[in-house]
């Protein structure tokens, strides 16, 4: 007798992994302990990262959008990933392409690229959110209920690019469990599949980004030793180089229209693909002013064009090896990831660079999403992949601008994350009550040559003579590679208000407005959603706290235990009532009642870990969606509204701690 597969109408939400690529995107999940790509009704797993906006406001994503690109080059956005986290005047906007960029009308608007599409102004975050929404739908078609996502980013993405990706996830209605570095994701999928141990390099050349990561695989621990790359280098650049040549063939080298550019770039990409296993390809191209021409492109010619692009990867590779403190010969393998690694010249180059044949027995288009699915599965606590731990690093040094415009490094690149640093600054004017900090990311000596991340304005410093106030600034980089800053005046212990003015990206209000716009029924719906999400968080706390009581009640004295049980009961009651505010208040109360105890339990966990025992898994819970307002709060902490410069702001005088 055959078994019927029973479809559960209230299926538990399951996590997904997403590779949000420059050229193609992909969603995957873990099924029966193994990661698999989710396919559309045509059996296709790859979703082209192309979005077409029609005049009625309809959005089409994927293959169908790509088909519209030729006839509607201005309305079809491709390779939007290259614009994530970039300002309006970024050099990336000046490259050969078809996008109609809108000039910023204010300095605030200049913090992000804006695209003009069908009379609307769109940001790269919104376009990416449209791609993510399509992927979410694909996953929902197969799994009914999606419970959080790991989204991959190039390892070399800076803070602004990461934040933009997280914002896009939020906008697409996804709970972003983690931003995972693409090479690390690939190594995770590969390492678990092949059960390999050793020192590996992951060479990841995608459509628009290049990453090199050196990491150690050791019995389920994936420890990144170093990473490097270029977040504006990839297969797109090869297409552009060849496209430029094709435009000349077409007699359209000077000021071609978007249709002609699209045609040349598409022809270039097709030629590049064809030259993977052919020596020569003939392209039939229209000529400006009528007629057509046949352009013959040989592999040798393509290689001459792409050589300078590929050679740029070598510098980053050598530096990553140096940062890891190893020679290429110490590696146990080199993994190729990303569609552009199919180009024979790239393979040859990698082989010569590392002195060994690279491993290409994994599908370079899928491996990143598969790794993301594994990580999502682990984070959701449904993990069937055993004891796996990813230790990733900060890709670019974090620094502060000091007197003279010099960038003083506070966290060097390749620091294992999460990471933190503290710096103590002092005031230099009498009665100074404000202070400004400029945080930058990059390796260059001068702050102006690094990437500006944000300006932090501190206020409310108690008036004191110059040099008396001691400002302790704490920088935290979380496991997503995202930075937060806190400030405290040491002598008085007063926490300082920190106003953050990010140099790039969307303001919190903008993301909020977009979120509200995305929810069809406005305010009321938003409130209901908020309550639902507070309840989920409350349930999670109830489960965790009960589990903790079962395991570690001995770490509480009688009165503490009573307080915990009281707060627990009150939260249980509040969940049944219908107010998000009340539930939040009771969550906070339980949080307060358990804070110290949580510290003791953590000490116990540490003691056990040191003793070589496994961490108690008694209170293992199924992760549910994290609340929207918690994410909002997190975002607000990073980008509080109404940021304005301090009247008394000064340049910091650094004093390392």
């Amino acid at each position, binding site marked *: 007798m055959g078994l019927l597969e029973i479809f559960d109408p209230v299926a538990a939400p399951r996590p997904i992994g997403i590779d949000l690529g420059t050229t193609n995107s992909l969603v995957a999940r873990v099924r029966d302990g193994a990661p698999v790509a989710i396919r559309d009704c045509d059996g296709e797993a790859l979703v082209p990262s192309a979005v077409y906006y029609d005049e009625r406001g309809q959005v089409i994503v994927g293959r169908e959008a790509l088909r519209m690109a030729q006839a509607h080059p201005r309305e079809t956005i491709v390779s939007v990933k290259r614009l994530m986290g970039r300002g309006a005047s970024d050099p990336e906007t000046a490259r050969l392409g078809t996008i109609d960029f809108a000039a910023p009308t204010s300095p605030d608007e200049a913090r992000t690229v804006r695209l003009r599409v069908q009379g609307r102004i769109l940001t790269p975050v919104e376009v990416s959110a449209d791609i993510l929404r399509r992927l979410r739908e694909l996953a929902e078609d197969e799994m009914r209920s999606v419970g959080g996502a790991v989204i991959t980013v190039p390892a070399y993405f800076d803070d602004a690019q990461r934040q933009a990706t997280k914002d896009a996830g939020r906008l697409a209605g996804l709970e972003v469990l983690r931003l995972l570095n693409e090479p690390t994701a690939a190594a995770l999928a590969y390492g678990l599949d092949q059960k390999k141990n050793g020192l590996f390099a992951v060479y990841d050349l995608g459509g628009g980004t290049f990453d090199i990561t050196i990491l150690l695989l050791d019995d389920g621990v994936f420890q990144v030793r170093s990473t490097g790359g270029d977040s504006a280098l990839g297969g797109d650049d090869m297409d552009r180089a060849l496209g430029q040549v094709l435009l000349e063939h077409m007699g359209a080298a000077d000021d071609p229209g978007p249709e002609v550019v699209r045609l040349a770039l598409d022809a270039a990409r097709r030629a590049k693909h064809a030259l993977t296993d052919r020596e020569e390809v003939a392209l039939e191209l229209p000529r400006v002013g009528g007629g057509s021409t046949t352009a013959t492109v040989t592999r040798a010619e393509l290689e001459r064009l792409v050589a300078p692009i590929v050679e740029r990867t070598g510098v980053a590779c050598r530096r990553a090896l140096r940062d890891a403190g190893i020679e290429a010969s110490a590696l146990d393998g080199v993994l190729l990831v990303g569609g552009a690694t199919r180009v024979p010249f790239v393979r040859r180059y990698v082989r010569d660079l590392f002195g060994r044949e690279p491993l290409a027995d994994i599908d370079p288009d899928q491996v990143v999403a598969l790794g993301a699915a594994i990580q999502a599965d682990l*984070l959701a606590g449904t993990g069937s992949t055993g004891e796996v731990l990813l230790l990733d690093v900060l890709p670019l040094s974090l620094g502060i601008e000091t007197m003279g415009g010099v960038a003083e490094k506070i966290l060097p690149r390749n620091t294992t994350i999460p990471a933190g640093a503290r710096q103590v600054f002092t005031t230099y004017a009498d009665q100074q009550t404000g202070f400004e900090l400029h945080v930058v990311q990059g390796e260059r000596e001068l702050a102006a040559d690094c990437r500006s991340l944000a300006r932090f304005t501190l206020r409310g410093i108690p008036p004191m003579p110059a040099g008396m106030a001691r400002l302790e600034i704490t920088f935290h980089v979380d496991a997503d590679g995202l930075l937060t800053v806190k400030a405290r005046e040491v002598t008085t212990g007063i926490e300082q208000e920190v106003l953050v003015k990010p140099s790039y990206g969307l303001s919190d209000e903008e993301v909020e407005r977009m979120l509200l716009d995305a929810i069809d029924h406005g305010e009321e719906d938003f409130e209901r959603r908020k309550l639902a999400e507070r309840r989920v968080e409350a349930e999670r706390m109830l489960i965790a706290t009960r589990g903790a009581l079962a395991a570690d009640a001995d770490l509480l004295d009688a009165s503490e235990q009573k307080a915990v049980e009281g707060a627990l009961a009150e939260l249980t009651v509040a969940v049944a009532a219908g107010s998000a505010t009340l539930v939040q208040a009771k969550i906070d109360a339980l949080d307060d009642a358990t804070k110290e105890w*949580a510290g003791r339990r953590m000490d116990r966990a540490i003691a056990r870990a040191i003793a070589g025992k496994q961490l108690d898994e008694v209170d293992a819970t199924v992760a549910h969606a994290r609340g929207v307002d918690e994410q909002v709060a997190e975002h607000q902490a990073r980008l509080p509204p109404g940021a304005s410069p301090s009247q008394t702001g000064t340049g910091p005088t650094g004093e390392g701690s």
Partner: protein
Amino acid sequence: MTHDPFTVLGLEPRFDVDLAAAEVRHRELSRALHPDRYQGKPAAERRMALERAIEVNAAWRALRDPVTRAEALLAAGGVELDERAEPKASPALLMEMMELQEELAEVRGKRDAAGLRRLGEALRTRERELCARLAPAFAAARGDAARLRALLPAVGELRYLRRFFEAYAAAEEELAA
């Protein structure tokens, strides 16, 4: 960081700490504290785990570098770390460092990769020798502030070497590009 890295990693405070053992310890603690392990836990617990994980990573970073390792031992013994108040470097050391700087500028100018490598090797040897001298000295001080203070010139020398290493790394990068 507020906590001394040896305490954070639960290791005996010594200059010649077994770095392989420290790495294993760092990994064990990361397994217990990494934010990945606290996904789905209440916010307070997640925050706390994040801070501890940061501390563990910082401790491991501090122990790997001989300068910060030495500073941690000095601080644990109650020696205040203030470079400006520390004894000035000896003229001999300053002279040596100046000569090294000149040598570096020369190989940099000539883009002499082999010369640069030789210089790097010499520096590493110099650092190894200094560390080999410092290890028994730290052990003999037994955490006594006065005896630790006597080690400040040697630690200062270590710092000079470190700064020189940075200049060397920049030159290496320049030559590789």
